[in-house]
């Protein structure tokens, strides 16, 4: 069965749209290309509205679904009291003929300019290949005809959004799968029977117990215990819920770990980078000090080494004069001056004549100059010696400073490279906030799982203990009832009802189990038929209705599967479900590959193309999804391609590609 056409009038942004999907040659692959925000999900909702009278998918930007369905542009164009229909008509086609489902609402424009829902209706036109068409107009007939082909209870396996495709098997730990299997098993009658028999059994046991005070007391305790276990907020419900939450958390943790891969925590990386930045700043300060020291060193040694020849010459000169005793001797100047004053020579011990006095005065004068020079030269000797020794240390000091310079430069280069490397890793994350959030979630989940594990184990023990107590009470109750001869008939009837209920439960379990097994086998076959690489050894729906994927190393790996692999698993499950349920409908998928990254998009696009050989597929894809590689997979094989454009942000224009 396939969708032959969809006609939409005045449904939100779709004013007048006709999408036709003719008979395909090989691939019944159809797609509609539209940018985000144009209304792909609204299109999906128009389909579910037509079939089921409900918009079943969350539409971005249209949270308030209480707004009238009528296109706003149409409403603006209408005059007060004018009427207009919002309608969606879908024609399905199979080997027997065609069937067209039409649902519409008639709106009238009020004086306030609002759309008033005047009436709503629906009709089905069944047109067999031979014979006259039949028209059915009642809501009940409409529902029956829809449910014969696309049952509401499994509608989610015909009309997907991509998000659901990714998470369906993952997030619910078997609950959804079990419900789905139950829904397609067509054992509703048995389930109702099981419930009724349980009620009858309980009522009879209660009635039997009432006849005897001891039995009544035990029954009271039994019922109390049963309620504690099976009641709405009982131990079993709590245990199941907590266990499911724990499984969900484990799955989410695996998914996060898988998404994060080997990449380190961005927060840690940024902290490390900041640390390196601080070290780099320290090194740069050290480098500045070293540069200053080098400039100081150069100045100092340029002075010393440029002056060295003259300093050495002076040094040697002083030494030589000292050695040759050419420096003026030390003498007592005051004694000479006293000799002149007293006109008496202390050396000759005679009176000084005029010539001798003049000679001594000249000697004093000459010696005065010589003494100053001598003193200066003598004083210079020490400092010159120190400076020459200082100059000789040039090489050692140079090597130390320039060695230091080189080391700092190397350290800076190493650090800069490390910072660059970290930056390149950090910059790879186009969405750092997302990665940080993943790490935060990972930590929270790890903490939660640790604590929830303990809780679940404790609850399991409590539940087991409570069940044992219930069994004991049941035995005690039966024993008490058996003692009472008055209610023999009631006892028998209660036992019969309980046995019948247990039998029905068994049958239900068997039927469900059988269907589960069939779906599991079919899913496995489809999965391996469509899978692009051989890294898994088995997939199945386990006895507790959870999906299981085992890798070649023998480990469970559903949580670490890529989005593409998870989507493939759901797709395989869906195909199996279609086959086993007998409801072989089309697949309409909104944004099928938006959650898949890189090369896997192409791999999954090929899978969808391959599936379209045997099943009609209608995809709503965004420009982002429709990359060159994906286009190469779809375009040459497509049965029908449409492109949606939003006009004046008001209504959608449809064109064929």
């Amino acid at each position, binding site marked *: 069965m396939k969708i032959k056409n969809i006609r939409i009038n005045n449904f939100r942004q779709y004013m007048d749209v006709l999408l036709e999907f003719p008979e395909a040659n090989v691939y019944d692959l159809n797609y509609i290309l539209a940018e985000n925000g144009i209304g792909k999900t609204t299109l999906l909702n128009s389909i579910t509205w037509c079939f089921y009278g409900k918009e079943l998918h969350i539409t971005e930007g249209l949270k308030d679904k209480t707004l009238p369905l009528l296109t706003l542009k149409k409403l603006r164009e209408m005059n007060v009291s004018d009427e207009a229909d919002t309608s969606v008509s879908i024609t399905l086609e199979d080997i027997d003929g065609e069937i067209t489902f039409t649902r519409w609402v008639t709106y009238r424009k009020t004086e306030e300019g609002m759309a008033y829902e005047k009436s709503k209706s629906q009709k089905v036109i069944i047109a067999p290949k031979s014979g006259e068409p039949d028209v059915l107009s009642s809501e009940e007939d409409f529902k029956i005809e829809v449910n014969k082909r696309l049952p509401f209870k499994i509608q989610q396996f015909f009309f997907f959004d991509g998000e659901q495709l990714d998470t369906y098997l993952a997030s619910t730990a078997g609950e959804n799968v079990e419900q789905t299997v139950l829904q397609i098993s067509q054992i509703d009658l048995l389930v109702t029977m099981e419930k009724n028999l349980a009620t009858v059994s309980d009522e009879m046991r209660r009635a039997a117990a009432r006849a005897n005070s001891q039995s009544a007391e035990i029954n009271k305790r039994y019922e109390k215990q049963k309620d504690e276990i099976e009641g709405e907020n009982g131990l079993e419900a709590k245990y199941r819920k907590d266990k499911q939450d724990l499984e969900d958390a484990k799955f989410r943790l695996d998914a996060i770990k898988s998404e994060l891969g080997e990449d380190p925590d961005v927060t840690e990386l940024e902290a490390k980078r900041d640390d390196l930045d601080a070290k780099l700043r320290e090194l740069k300060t050290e480098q500045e000090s070293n540069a200053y020291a080098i400039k100081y060193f150069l100045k100092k040694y340029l002075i010393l080494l440029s002056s060295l*020849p003259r300093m050495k010459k002076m040094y040697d000169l002083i030494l030589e004069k000292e050695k040759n005793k050419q420096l003026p001797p030390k003498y007592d100047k005051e004694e000479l001056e006293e000799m002149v004053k007293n006109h008496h020579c202390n050396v000759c011990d005679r009176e000084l004549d005029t010539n001798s006095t003049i000679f001594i005065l000249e000697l004093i004068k000459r010696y005065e*100059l010589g003494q100053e020079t001598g003193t200066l030269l003598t004083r210079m000797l020490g400092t010159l010696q120190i400076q020459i020794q200082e100059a000789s240390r040039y090489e050692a000091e140079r090597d130390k400073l320039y060695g230091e310079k080189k080391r700092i430069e190397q350290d800076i280069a190493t650090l800069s490279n490390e910072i660059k490397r970290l930056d390149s890793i950090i910059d790879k994350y186009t969405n750092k906030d997302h990665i940080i959030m993943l790490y935060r979630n990972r930590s929270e989940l790890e903490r939660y799982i640790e604590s929830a594990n303990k809780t679940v184990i404790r609850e399991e023990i409590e539940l087991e203990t409570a069940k044992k107590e219930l069994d004991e009470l049941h035995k005690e109750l039966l024993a008490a009832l058996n003692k009472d001869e008055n209610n023999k008939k009631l006892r028998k009837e209660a036992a019969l009802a309980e046995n019948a209920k247990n039998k029905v439960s068994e049958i239900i379990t068997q039927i469900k189990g059988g269907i589960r097994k069939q779906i599991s086998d079919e899913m496995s076959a489809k999965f391996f038929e469509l899978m692009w690489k051989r890294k898994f050894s088995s997939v199945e729906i386990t006895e507790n209705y959870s999906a299981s994927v085992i890798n070649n190393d023998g480990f469970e790996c559903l949580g670490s599967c890529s989005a593409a692999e998870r989507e493939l698993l759901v797709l395989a499950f869906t195909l199996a479900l279609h086959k086993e349920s007998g409801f072989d409908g089309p697949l309409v998928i909104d944004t099928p590959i938006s959650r898949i990254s890189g090369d896997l998009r192409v791999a999954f696009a090929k899978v969808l193309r391959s599936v379209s050989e045997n099943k009609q597929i209608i995809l709503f894809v965004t420009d982002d999804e429709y990359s060159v590689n994906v286009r190469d997979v779809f375009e040459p094989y497509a049965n029908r391609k449409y492109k949606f454009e939003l006009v004046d942000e008001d209504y959608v224009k449809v064109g064929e590609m």
Partner: protein
Amino acid sequence: MDQDRIYIDKNRQKEIRSIKDAGYLSFDNQKDVFMLAMALGIDCYNGGTLENAKDGFFNDRDLSEADKSLIYSLIAPELDSIEEITNRELVLKKAEGMADKGFTIILEEMSETSPEVYQLQMLQKANQLFLEASKNKYFDI
């Protein structure tokens, strides 16, 4: 020395004063710049003194014993006799003349290149001077 100031050419005082903080080398004060200028001006010094108007550059109290020894050593060969070394006024005038030549060299070299290249050039110069000093056994004392 009656002179208590060391002078530079007033016409070039702005450029000469800018050497200290130009970033090519590190100087503690203007006396440092003067000592370097003297050292670099030795080879092209012709015995002259400052001829133009003069501007006080630093106080001679800033000169340490080591600075004085160096100045005397550099100026001694420019004197008629060693006895003139005690003539502080004469020595300082010649020191100013010698430094003036050095300032010219420093300013020229600095204007021609970046601090980094200048430092490399100065390093090569110092290496060369050290090699020559070793060869001439100037360190043998």
